[in-house]
């Protein structure tokens, strides 16, 4: 139920929508719950709605630790 995935903002549209990319898949999501979203930001999506921005510094730390990536295309 509380599934989420991290995605990169590719394009921002009117009506609080954004095109995001995750592992090469592009999809429109709703960004009404976030403020100051910019292209290139990483955001966390739950049921089609962005519920938070992802702190890239923190994410990179994890990445360094495990060699895992948030987004294979970044």
């Amino acid at each position, binding site marked *: 139920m509380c*599934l989420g*995935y991290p995605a990169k903002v590719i394009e921002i549209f009117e009506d609080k929508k954004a*095109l995001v990319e*995750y*592992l*090469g*898949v*592009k*999809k*429109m999501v709703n960004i009404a719950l976030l403020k100051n979203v910019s292209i290139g930001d990483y955001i966390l*999506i739950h049921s*089609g709605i962005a519920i938070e921005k992802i702190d890239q510094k923190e994410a990179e730390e994890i990445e360094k630790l495990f060699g895992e990536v948030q987004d*294979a*295309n970044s």
Partner: protein
Amino acid sequence: MKFIQKEHGNGGKQTYELINGLFKPIFGSEILKRGDDSSIFDLASKKIGVTTDSFVVKPYFFKGGDIGKLSVCGTVNDLAVSGLVPKYITASFIIEEGFPIEDLQKIVRSMKEYADIAGVEIVAGDTKVVEKGSCDGIFINTTGFGVCEKEERLPSIEKIKGGQIVIVSGDIGRHGACIYSHSSELGVEEKIESDCAPLNRVINELLKNVEICYMKDLTRGGLATALNEIAQKASVDIYIEEDKVPVSNEVKALCDILGLDSYYLACEGRFVAVINKEDKQKTLEILKKYNKEACEIGWIEDTKEKRVYLKTSFGGTRILDMLYYEMLPRIC
């Protein structure tokens, strides 16, 4: 634009015109053209194999194929993984009135194209038209016959035993992910390409060069279900290593977005093979000519629990069971 009407299926003049004006010219088979109640022909051998499948995929045009291509590949693949040379196919259509004839033409042409690629002839057909709302566009049944060229080469469940290895012919889950990606409500921008393809060539080359103990194409239910069927029938356990199973990023992405599991996603151009350890190099050599993602993913154990186990990336082990849940859109 022209549409299918109920009269195209009443067995009368318009059925006759559809068959003679659309199906026969495209399929072009001499046997089919005779248009008798049965199609009669000579077989190359008395040992034959038969398989049947109905295809109900929605949407009927998808990235990488359509229901026509799928209906030919699906049946060709069932024959091929059984170790047979696919020879003949029948095609039976159930069409909803109002179906665009142009679309039907595309589908039928695509069947012909892939029948040619697979080297099979379409020898018999049937068309029924049902009223609007009684079926969802178009359903196709194909039934295929293959002949057995060398009996001792036939893969068989009895040949499976502990110590053998399990190979997959390419990355998994593309067809299922493709169909999900077409769901308009999901709003995925670029659709994922289906893996739908005929497997008879690669399999034929394999059969001629190595001993394939058993094969199964991955369709509905995906890799997990196919492996479970094998474990059940062969009364063995199968161990799969999570890290080795090839899954494309796109398929992974779709799984994360929808909460799906790639092991259960359908493929329509992939198979698993059980082979002896010593054949591994040769087998992979051949497979990789057709698909670079082909690789070893696990092994057989004689423990007879009839289970499939997954060794996880973190070193845990868990059951990999059959599919229990509804995968929502229609995929084959």
